[in-house]
């Protein structure tokens, strides 16, 4: 479904990604783990078109999407939940969700998707008119995910959904991720919480200073000595 071939992305003169290669098949949950500054977020930003790679290419459903502006990539079916949630604080919860469906005009299908989002995130129900900035961290994360689902993505990019959340809520968020995946959305998940991510995902990549250093089935990575030492704190 998604193929990333040898992308190198720079911030000015600093090379953040060094020929990153990865592949996501339809229906999978793939996770990308690594420490701070390894390039996880950069990888997602490059896929969704918010950053342009200096080399390499990204293909999605057989089409090259490198160089395509981000708003068109969203239309092709990739939705990005950015790091730190980045909801629109001075908009109501409902307006935030409507923003997710911005490029769409099919009112009836949008209504259906709204119902679907409220079903997936029952906590958001009944608070449609609340200012999003007044929601709790966990609720904001759910809103950010719901907002991304409103574009009816085929592939959902999740950037650190567990960031800054209480363990209980992290658990809940991961259950929801599995639920979204079961409903037919492919997921590329970036996480620092390697334990949770590898338990949820089918396949995993380990990123270190801009390079993919390991790739395997998630369950195998959980058993891998290097991974256990570096990312699971054992």
């Amino acid at each position, binding site marked *: 479904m998604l193929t990333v071939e040898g992308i190198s992305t720079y911030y000015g003169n600093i090379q953040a990604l060094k020929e990153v290669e990865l592949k996501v098949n339809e229906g999978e949950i793939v996770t990308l783990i690594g420490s701070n500054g390894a390039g996880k977020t950069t990888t997602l930003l490059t896929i969704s078109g918010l950053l342009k790679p200096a080399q390499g290419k990204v293909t999605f459903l057989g089409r090259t999407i490198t160089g395509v502006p*981000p*708003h068109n990539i969203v239309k092709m079916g990739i939705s990005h939940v950015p790091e730190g949630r980045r*909801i629109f604080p001075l908009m109501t919860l409902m307006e935030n969700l409507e923003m997710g469906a*911005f490029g769409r005009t099919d009112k009836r299908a949008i209504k259906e998707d709204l119902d679907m989002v409220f079903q997936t995130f029952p906590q958001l129900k009944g608070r449609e*008119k609340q200012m999003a900035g007044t929601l709790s961290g966990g609720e904001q994360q759910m809103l950010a995910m719901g*907002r991304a689902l409103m574009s009816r993505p085929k592939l959902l990019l999740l950037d650190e959904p567990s960031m800054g959340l209480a363990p209980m809520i992290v658990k809940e968020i991961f259950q929801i991720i599995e639920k979204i995946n079961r409903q037919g959305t492919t997921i590329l998940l970036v996480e620092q919480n390697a334990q949770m991510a590898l338990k949820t995902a089918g396949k995993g990549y380990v990123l270190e200073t801009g390079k993919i250093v390991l790739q395997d089935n998630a369950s195998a990575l959980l058993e891998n000595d290097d991974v256990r030492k570096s990312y699971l704190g054992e």
Partner: protein
Amino acid sequence: MISTYYLQIIILAGINIIMATSLNLIVGYTGQLSIGHAAFMSLGAYASAIATLHLGFPFIAALLFGAVVAGLFGVLVGIPTLRLKGDYLAIATLGFGEIVRIIFLNLQITGGAVGLRGIPKQTTLLWVIAAAIFTLFVLRRILNSRVGRALIAIREDETAAESMGINTMYFKTLSFGVGAFFAGFGGGLFAHYFRYIHPNVFGFMRSIEHLCMVVLGGLGNMWGAMLGAVALTAIPELLRAGAEYRLLAYGAILVLMMRARPQGLLGESEQTGGSIRRKIRIFSRGADTLKKT
């Protein structure tokens, strides 16, 4: 009837309402800090004045002509400069304002440093009221639509807006163009009221004055911008008795105001939001502060 003195203040307040609300669209709603609004006003003023003087346009056509010229320049300037953010955009718009002023100071057709004289006096109180209502009506329609939400999304978080599938450049340019259009509209009214325009009338200080109106009233709140426009037109007049000290008092009022209510007269902060504002539509909602720009 009203004395000419008061009439002039009321008309100026009306024009300033148009200027402040149109600037509010750019700064308060879209979050793009522009300090060259007076340049678009001058483009509208000169274009409409030339249209009536040399091309024999009827008043309303001249006004629209001025507005369209300003709007086109808004789009032309917006396309390259709106890629800049915050302070950089502010400096670019400031530079544009100076370029326009100096060009008008040197062109033949605009009367150069002598200014443009003999513009027929066609702006009446009724015209100004109608024009202000028209401006507010259009801005309201824009803001309470899908476009308004896109603009606010850009203000709140440009990257997030982009990843939501919003073509941010398009909407920023649209907002800039519409803002410039109405600034030009206001400029046309101004030219046809005072009958004489000079490039220095539309200098940097005029742009700052417009910005003060918006910030004082409350960024991202149209009622606030209107209140700011009226207040900052009236206060210098009320202080006229203080002669040269009046600008000192004016400045002090602005400083105290920002200390007491940084979110502006009608702006509301994020913290006080929530339930109270449930029913308020985008048109009269406030942005937190300038922090985003």
